[in-house]
C-alpha cells in the first residue's frame, strides 16, 4: 500500500508540475508582447505596458518568471483582475469556487445515490428488460450536450410547468434563471440550485451507473458468488453482503474521475443557467481577455481535480487491502 501511495504521490507532483508549466507557458509564449495583450492590445499606452511588464516581472529570465509565478500562486497571491475592476483574483475565484462547490455538492447528492441504484438494478438484471431500459436511457442522456438538457429543463420544467396547476398549488416552483447574487448564502441560493444540479446529475448519471453496472456484472461471475449460492445462502443475502460490497468499492474512484467530467459540464451548465460559479467566471474572463484571471482559474481547477483524484486513491487504498498486491 505504501508503494502504491508513493507512486500516486509522485504522479500527483509530476502532473501538477507539467500542467502548471503548460498553463504558464501558454500565456508566455504568445507571439508579441504578453504585457501588451494584458494591457488591452493596441489601445494601451506605452506607460501602461511598461507598468504591467514591471508588475508581472516579465523582465526576468523565463525559468525565474515561472518559479516566481508558481511561488506566488501557492502562496496565495493570484494577482488582480483587469476585467472585474477593483477585485482581487483570489477573492473573486474563491467566492465563485464556493458557489460552484455548492452546486457540485447538490449535484453529487442527487446523482450518486440514483446512479448507484440504477447501475445495480441494471447489473443484477443483465440483458433483461430493466437493464435494457436503463441502458437506453443512460445512453441517450450521456449523448446529449449539457446545454441541450439545460435549456430543455428551463423551457419545459421552469417555464411551461411553472405556470401549471401544480406550481400554483405549491406556491413555489423552480426559477428559470439561476442568476443569484454571488455573495448569497447557501440557503438563499438553494432554490436556484435544483435545476442546474439536475442538469449536472444527468451528465454524471450515465457515467456512474454504466460503470457500476459493469462492476456488478463482473462480481456476479466470481466463484465465491456461486459457492455462496450453492451453500444455500439466500440470494438476497449474497447480493447485499458480498456482491455489492465488492462491486461498489471501485465506485469511489469512478466518482473522483467523474469530478473531472463534472467540471467540464458545469462550465456549460453555469453559463446556461446564469449561475455565478467558477465556470461562468472562466467564460467571462476569456470573453474580456483577462488572461491572468484565466490562468488562475485553470490552476485552481486543476488543483481541485488532482487533489480529488489523490484523495480517491488514498481512500481506495485504505478500503481495499489488496491494492498493495497489484
Amino acid at each position, binding site marked *: 500500500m505504501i508503494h502504491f501511495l508513493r507512486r500516486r504521490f509522485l504522479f500527483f507532483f509530476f502532473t501538477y508540475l*507539467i500542467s502548471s508549466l503548460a498553463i504558464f507557458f501558454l500565456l508566455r509564449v504568445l507571439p508579441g508582447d504578453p504585457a501588451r495583450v494584458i494591457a488591452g492590445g*493596441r489601445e494601451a499606452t506605452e506607460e501602461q505596458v511598461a507598468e504591467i511588464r514591471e508588475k508581472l516581472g516579465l523582465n526576468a529570465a523565463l525559468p525565474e518568471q515561472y518559479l516566481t509565478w508558481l511561488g506566488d500562486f501557492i502562496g496565495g497571491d493570484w494577482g488582480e483582475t483587469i476585467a472585474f475592476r477593483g477585485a482581487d483574483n483570489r477573492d473573486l475565484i474563491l467566492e465563485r469556487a464556493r458557489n460552484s462547490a455548492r452546486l457540485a455538492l447538490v449535484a453529487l447528492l442527487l446523482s450518486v445515490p440514483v446512479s448507484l441504484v440504477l447501475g445495480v438494478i441494471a447489473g443484477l438484471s443483465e440483458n433483461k428488460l430493466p437493464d435494457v431500459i436503463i441502458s437506453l436511457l443512460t445512453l441517450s442522456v450521456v449523448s446529449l450536450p449539457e446545454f441541450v438538457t439545460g435549456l430543455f429543463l428551463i423551457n419545459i420544467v421552469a417555464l411551461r410547468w411553472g405556470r401549471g396547476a401544480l406550481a400554483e398549488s405549491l406556491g413555489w416552483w423552480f426559477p428559470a434563471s439561476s442568476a443569484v447574487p454571488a455573495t448569497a448564502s447557501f440557503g438563499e441560493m438553494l432554490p436556484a440550485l435544483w435545476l442546474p444540479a439536475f442538469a449536472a446529475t444527468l451528465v454524471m448519471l450515465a457515467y456512474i451507473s454504466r460503470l457500476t453496472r459493469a462492476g456488478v456484472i463482473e462480481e456476479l461471475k466470481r466463484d465465491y458468488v456461486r459457492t455462496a449460492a450453492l451453500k444455500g445462502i439466500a440470494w438476497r443475502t449474497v447480493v447485499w453482503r458480498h456482491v455489492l460490497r465488492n462491486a461498489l468499492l471501485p465506485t469511489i474512484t469512478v466518482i473522483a474521475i467523474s469530478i473531472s467530467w463534472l467540471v467540464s459540464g458545469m462550465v456549460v451548465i453555469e453559463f446556461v443557467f446564469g449561475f455565478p460559479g467558477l465556470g461562468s467566471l472562466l467564460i467571462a474572463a476569456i470573453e474580456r481577455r483577462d488572461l491572468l484571471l484565466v490562468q488562475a482559474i485553470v490552476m485552481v481547477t486543476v488543483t481541485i481535480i488532482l487533489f480529488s483524484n489523490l484523495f480517491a486513491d488514498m481512500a481506495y487504498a485504505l478500503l481495499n487491502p489488496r491494492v498493495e498486491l497489484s
Partner: protein
Amino acid sequence: MPSSQISRSLVNLIGTLLRQPQSAVGTILVIFFFLLALFGAQLAPYPNPNDQSHDVRQSPTLDLAKLQLGEHPFGTDRLGRDVYSRVILGASSIFRIAGLGTLVSVVLGSALGLFMGYQGGWVDEILGRVIDATLAIPALLLALVLVGIIRNLEFEAGSWQAGLADNVVLLVIAVLYIPIVARVARSTTLDIKTREFVAAAEIRGESQAYIIFCEILPSVIPSLVVEASLRFSYAIFLVASLGFLGFGARPPSPDWGLMVNENRGGFYQLTPWALEFPALAIALLVIAVNLMSDGIRRAVQKGE
C-alpha cells in the same frame, strides 16, 4: 495493405453495423447528416443562410401562420431567416470541423504513439508521463483556454480573416486529441512489437520507418478506427458546445450551437422553433454518432 482489401473490410464493417438495430439507426442517421453536409447548399430552399424571407420591420412578431409547411417548414427566426435552410446549411461546418480535427489528431497522434511504442526507453517514458499529465486537465477547460489565447493573438495582429474562428476550433480539437490517440496507438504498438513478424523484419534489416508503417501499423489500425470514431463523437459534442458558448463560429454563421445560443432567453418565448430545431439536430447527430461508434467498437472487438 492493397486498396481492394481496405474497401472490402470497409464494406464488411458497414454490413456489420447495419445488422444490429441500434448501430444501424445510428449509421443511417450519420450518413443522412453527412449527405446534408455535402449537398446542403443544393437542398436548402434559401441557399444563403442570411436571406431574410420577409422584412422583420413590417411584421416583427411572427405568427404561426408563417409556419405553413412548404414555405417555412421550421419557421423563421426573429430576423426573418428560414430556420430549415439554416439547419441544413449548418451541417457542413460541424462535419468539416469535427471531421478534419479528428483526422488531423488521428494521423499525428498515431504517428506519435507508434513511434513512442516502438522506440520505448526514456523518450517513451517522458512523453507518456507528459500525456498522462495533460489528460488531467478537463478537455473543455483546455479548449476554452486555447480558444481564448488564439483569439488574443488574432486581436494582437489586428487582422480579421474570414473563417479563422472556425479553424481555431479545428486546431483546438487536433491539439486536444493528439495525446489521447497517441496513448491508444502506443499501448497497441507495445503489444504488437513483441510478435514474430516484427522480429523477422528487424532481422532482415528493414528500416525503422518500414517496420513502423508497413509491419506494425496494419495491426494497429482496428484499434485506431475504434478510437477515431470515439474521438469524432466527442469532437461533434465539443464543436456544438463551443459554438453554443460563443467561442466557435461567429454570428451570421448558421452554426447549430450558435443558433441555439442566439435564440435562447427572451427570444425563446417569441420564436421557440428557432432554438428547438438546431438543438434537435445537435441531439440527433450526437446520439447517432454515439450509436455508430458503439457499433464500430463492438464490430471490431468481435472481429479480433
